């Protein structure tokens, strides 16, 4: 064999595997389909009475209609969903919902009062995580069939035994547990009394704007438009949410028009997109509260003056003007802006000298050592480093313990933290959802009936808890708002929390794909308004 032939052979064998590098399919997404590139590996179920993760909640929002809704057209106005109208008894204990006529499930079957009765009862009976949204109304597995009943004709009555303001109860009827499902389909898949839960994890029995076609875990969710939806057929026939774990890959898919939306881009990826005329980046207010929980079981943190000092040792403005720019804004309250009763409140600023003076008064003139458990991903790593640096200026020696988010939560729930840096998202669109977590602890024992955030931080507040519960009961809306304003100031000023930020969601989209607003919570993330030109 000649030298030339040998070389040709070698070159040929080296080139052979790369011969397939030919692009054989055009990239653009189909015109009747919206494609999201998103991290969706948090989905563990698409049964709306079980799903409690962000991505799963978004899908359920679009697949299931709910008794009441905050619709895409006005995120702030509570309107009827499956219910056409409702009435509240004078004592606020009984709510009667009139069901819309002529509604149909995806199967073609009519939506009946029996389906509504079944769905509200089922949320309690299957006893999954979101069940607490209804059990706080006094409903239990034992009594829910007596308290939620089809009352003949086209109405369903729901009686609550807890003392709650009607506005709060109505807001709960717009949450994920108030999703209405087809009883016949669910029961046809009942296995060992699970009310169809096993099957409904990855199938649907719904009447929402989209039908669930498939959920392939860690791969994609495909939805198909429901032409018979009560508010009209969605403009696009399909929505595909593809699991793309790496943000950089999301950006490439968007730029090549293989995705219409990229939902998890980092700031360094968003910045260069501003020069691309085919891409638009929009910012939407979200309702997550970013804060530090201070465990009063750790002696220095039990001192109110130390807590005051620490709240003055965070560079709130510096962070939102630098590495958090565009994604966060300062909000020092347990209620996010956009919620009923929320006040824009930011009494604390970085003031090292004042903080030092407070530490001297508290008997910690040389500072002390403290550990912060924080998730090991951005932006937590940057925020915790900034806090470490500014607290160090007053002698507080912060050691950061970066760990998996679930590990931080595990430590937090077990009250094993000193400081936990986390975020909190509301469960439904009412201030009680956050108040009941941050401002509720009248039993500081190790095994109380409930373990809200105040308990996790060992903040025993029986009196403030009563005030919080009174606000939840208040029938006068204006007075209720005032009561929450007072609570917010009290909790921010004295509580074991360093409230720092509220976040914005940044969504990058193709310029030709419009009409999507992720809403302040996942309950308002509607796909039915998306259009493509």
């Amino acid at each position, binding site marked *: *064999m000649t030298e030339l032939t*040998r070389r040709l052979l*070698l070159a040929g*064998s*080296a080139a052979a*595997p*790369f011969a*397939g*590098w*030919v*692009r*054989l*399919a055009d990239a653009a*997404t*189909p015109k009747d389909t919206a*494609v999201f590139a998103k991290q969706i*590996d948090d*989905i*563990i179920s698409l049964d709306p009475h079980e799903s*409690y*993760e962000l991505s799963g909640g978004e899908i359920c929002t679009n697949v299931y209609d709910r008794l009441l809704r905050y619709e895409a057209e006005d995120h702030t106005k509570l309107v009827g969903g499956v219910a056409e109208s409702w009435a509240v008894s004078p004592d606020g204990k009984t709510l009667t919902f009139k069901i819309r006529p002529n509604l149909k499930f995806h199967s073609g079957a009519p939506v009946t009062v029996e389906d509504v009765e079944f769905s509200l009862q089922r949320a309690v009976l299957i*006893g*999954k*995580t979101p*069940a*607490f949204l209804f*059990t706080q109304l006094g409903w239990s597995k034992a009594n829910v069939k007596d308290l939620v009943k089809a009352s003949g004709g086209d109405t369903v009555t729901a009686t609550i035994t807890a003392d709650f303001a009607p506005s709060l109860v109505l807001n709960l009827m717009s949450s994920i547990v108030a999703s209405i499902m087809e009883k016949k389909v669910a029961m046809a898949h009942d296995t060992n009394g699970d009310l169809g839960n*096993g099957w409904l*994890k*990855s199938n649907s029995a719904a009447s929402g704007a989209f039908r669930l*076609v*498939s959920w392939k*875990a*860690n*791969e*994609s969710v*495909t939805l198909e438009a429901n032409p018979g939806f009560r508010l009209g057929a969605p403009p696009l026939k399909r929505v*595909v949410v*593809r*699991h793309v*774990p*790496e943000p*950089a*890959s999301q950006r*490439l*898919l968007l*730029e*090549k028009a*293989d995705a219409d939306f990229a939902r998890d881009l980092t700031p360094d990826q968003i910045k260069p997109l501003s020069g691309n005329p085919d891409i638009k980046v929009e910012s939407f207010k979200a309702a997550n509260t970013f804060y530090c929980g201070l465990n009063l079981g750790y002696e220095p943190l039990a001192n109110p003056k130390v807590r005051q000092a620490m709240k003055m040792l965070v560079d709130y403005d510096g962070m939102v003007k630098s590495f958090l720019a565009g994604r966060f804004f300062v909000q020092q309250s347990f209620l996010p802006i956009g919620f009923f009763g929320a006040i824009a409140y930011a009494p604390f600023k970085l003031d090292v000298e004042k903080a030092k003076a407070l530490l001297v008064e508290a008997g910690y003139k040389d500072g002390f050592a403290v550990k912060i458990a924080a998730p090991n991903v951005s932006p937590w790593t940057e925020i915790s480093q900034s806090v470490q640096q500014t607290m160090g200026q007053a002698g507080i020696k912060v050691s950061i313990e970066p760990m*998996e988010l*679930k*590990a931080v*939560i*595990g*430590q937090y*729930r077990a009250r094993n933290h000193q400081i936990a840096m986390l975020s909190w998202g509301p*469960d439904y669109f009412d201030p009680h959802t956050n108040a009941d977590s941050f401002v509720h602890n009248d039993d500081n024992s190790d*095994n109380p009936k*409930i*373990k809200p955030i105040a308990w996790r931080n060992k903040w025993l507040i029986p009196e403030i808890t009563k005030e919080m519960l009174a606000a939840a009961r208040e029938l006068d809306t204006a007075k209720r708002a005032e009561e929450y304003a007072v609570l917010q100031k009290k909790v921010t000023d004295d509580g074991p929390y360093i409230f720092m930020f509220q976040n914005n969601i940044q969504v990058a989209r193709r310029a030709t794909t419009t009409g999507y607003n992720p809403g302040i919570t996942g309950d308002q993330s509607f796909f039915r308004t998306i259009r493509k030109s």
Partner: protein
Amino acid sequence: MSEAATQGAPTGAPAPADRPRAWILAHRAAGILVSVGLTFLGLTCVTFFIGRVIPIDPVLAIVGDKASPETYARVRAEIGLDLPLPVQYWRYLVKVVHGDFGNSVITSHPVLQDLLQVFPATLELAVPALLIGVVVGIPMGVVAATHRGRWPDQVIRLLSLFGYSMPVFWLGLVGLLLFYATLGWVGGPGRLDVGFEDIVTPVTGVITVDSLLAGEYDVFWNALSHLVLPASILGYLSLAYIARMTRSFMLGQLRQEYVLATLAKGLSPWRVIWVHALGNVWVQLVTIIALTFGSLLEGAVLTETVFAWPGLGLYIKNSLFNADLNAVLGGTVLVGVVYIGLNMLSDLIYPLVDPRARDRQ
């Protein structure tokens, strides 16, 4: 001696030469069984107990942060975490022996079903990657050895070093930027474009194969356009390793006296290098290839992350981060099976490539 072992004997007592051979075979089979059993036991034991001490609460992974204490306690009991650890392990072993790996908390499906879904995706990546590694890497290694110190050796060394030292994550992103985003030669992240999804019914789970079986050639070409980049990058990494190892083995052979003797006898250098010298390193190469294939099957996490490729590596990683212990254990057992299978396959191949191994048997 078993009945089966004596059946082949002519008449009367088995021939003395047959008895030891049958005994050896039985002994070897028993040895393999014991070895496989112990490996499994060790594998499940270590993974199980590591899974129980990681600082992530598997109950929280199911119920979420906001679950009530009642829900938390109920789910904890449902998945058996309230039992003593040895009891939990024993129950797990009994189930595994019956082919039940439990359900994944992330997907809600039986773990075995999940593994059967993700493993073909990984195979689809690993097989072409290994082919690239073998077909290109071995000739490169031979050329580097025969041109030691000269420019082909230096170029191959540089290519290999680059493949060794560049993080696969970075290579993947740069590859996507160049070949997908800039040149548009290949498909992007994912196994198919959205327009081609759900057309072919999975049979083997390998989309390129399934689409050919279904006669859906558009889907095949689209799947191929998505496959070529991640497979080439993984192939490049395996190529770098195989080329370096081949060079090293070949240098060892080229120093042997028989090489000089055969050349002196007038055999062509091509035959001496590619037949005699390379023939003598095949046993070592088979081991290297098997190990490379094993690592491609379970270690492509970063490639699968960058390319949104729903394979075994990504599945195990997600399961681990979500404390989905059943899935982690199931995935680990599968990886163990793969390695044991590859070891056994290597043992079978040795006699085919090396007469000395055949004689030893």
